[in-house]
């Protein structure tokens, strides 16, 4: 069991900034995120794209914003459960909550802050009629352990970075790698496209384009895929394989949070914006893009503000009746949980003779 003061669901910008604000109040945070890395949409969807409305940054790349937020909250030593999706929440008799992930990791905290953005990222599944029958029987939408493909025949479908990167990686692991894409052009990084070209020339990757997988063949386990290729004239044929890996990107879904008994409106969680962004469940807050209230704007900068106010309410729940007054970091400095201290240099007084 992982214990903390504030359990944050979602490690995007709002969740990461919560760690800093909570740290100033001497509250410790742990974050859960379905993605394997922190940053949320900023690192998953658009790391190389600029953002222009972060105060004091005329321009910052989304990936750099994530790095800066991680650096800013580092001294408050946040814990991370990455690559796992928060599945259930149970209120305990002592008022704390236990949140369990899809992999069974349990977390306990008196305050839960949902900073889940648009939800957890789920793989987009291609529209192949019998694909559901082969899920985990040779069809994998996400590559978790590349070793299961060792000396196997693998077919990958997709035209983005993940399809290219995994084709390159598995070319050295699998017995055969076939990459199928609807077009001859790929939209991945230029390096990856060139590498696939090189591996294709060496005969390590078979490329089938423009084509798509239209069916899966097998009896209890994948034995092959049916492919439709549309060159001069359409032709259909089968490719023998042990695994079919469709990589068509991820799309966010509110997911299990929708079943937590929270008031939901427009795919977002209703909160009390007059006070502290608490949901209809006392002790559970929703901040950032995942919440809604009259006049809500889904902006990173609004998430930062919501996180800051939420932490004050969390302090009151965790330290009932304990006095606190807002302090400016410039005046009081920042004392990290790791023993570091940041502070403004002392004023120098010198006499003029």
């Amino acid at each position: 069991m992982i214990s903390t003061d504030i359990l944050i669901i979602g490690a995007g910008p709002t969740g990461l900034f919560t760690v800093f604000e909570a740290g100033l109040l001497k509250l410790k945070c742990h974050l859960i995120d379905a993605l394997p890395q922190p940053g949320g949409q900023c690192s998953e969807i658009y790391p190389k794209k600029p953002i222009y409305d972060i105060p004091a940054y005329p321009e910052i790349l989304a990936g750099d914003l994530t790095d800066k937020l991680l650096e800013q909250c580092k001294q408050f030593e946040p814990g991370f459960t990455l690559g796992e999706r928060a599945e259930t929440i149970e209120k305990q008799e002592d008022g704390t909550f236990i949140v369990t992930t899809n992999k069974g990791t349990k977390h306990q905290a008196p305050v839960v802050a949902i900073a889940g953005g648009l939800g957890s990222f789920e793989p987009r599944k291609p529209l192949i009629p019998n694909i559901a029958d082969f899920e985990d029987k040779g069809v994998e939408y996400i590559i978790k352990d590349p070793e299961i493909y060792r000396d196997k025949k693998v077919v990958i479908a997709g035209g983005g970075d993940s399809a290219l990167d995994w084709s390159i990686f598995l070319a050295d692991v699998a017995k055969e790698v076939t990459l199928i894409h609807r077009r001859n052009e790929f939209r991945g990084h230029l390096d990856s496209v060139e590498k696939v070209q090189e591996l294709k020339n060496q005969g390590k990757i078979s490329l089938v384009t423009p084509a798509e997988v239209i069916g899966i063949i097998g009896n209890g386990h994948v034995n092959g895929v049916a492919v439709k290729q549309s060159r001069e004239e359409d032709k259909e044929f089968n490719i023998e394989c042990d695994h079919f890996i469709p990589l068509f990107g991820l799309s966010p879904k509110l997911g299990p949070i929708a079943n937590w008994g929270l008031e939901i409106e427009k795919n977002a969680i209703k909160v009390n914006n007059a006070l502290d962004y608490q949901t209809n469940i006392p002790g559970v807050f929703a901040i950032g893009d995942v919440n809604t209230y009259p006049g809500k704007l889904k902006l990173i900068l609004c998430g930062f503000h919501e996180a800051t106010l939420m932490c004050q309410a969390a302090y009151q729940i965790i330290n009932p009746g304990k006095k606190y007054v807002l302090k400016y970091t410039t005046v009081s400095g920042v004392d990290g949980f790791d023993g570091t201290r940041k502070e403004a240099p002392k004023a120098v007084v010198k006499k003029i003779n």
Partner: protein
Amino acid sequence: MQEDIKVTIVDRDGVSHTIDAPTDMAMNLMEVVRAYELAPEGTIGICGGMVMCASCQCYVNSNHKLPKMQDDEEAMLSEAFYVKDNSRLGCQIQMTPEMDGLEVELAPES
């Protein structure tokens, strides 16, 4: 101020809406759909208009001269589902006076 144009949008439930779209606010079709809440929040414009998802895919049913498809839109549509010959990404269709009378249908959510 420029006059609004009329755009007809068939939502994912098959209901047709003829609405007024401003042409002087740099809005695109995806944003118009969101402004009129013709698809639930979180099911359209997920990437915010960066051509990095296909949640605003629509089928254009009128003969308007549309902006030429750029490489990124073409690439994104090549990975999308339910794609037809008249598929476009709503975020790439700007609301200009030339788009008056445009008729589109939202593609299914995927």
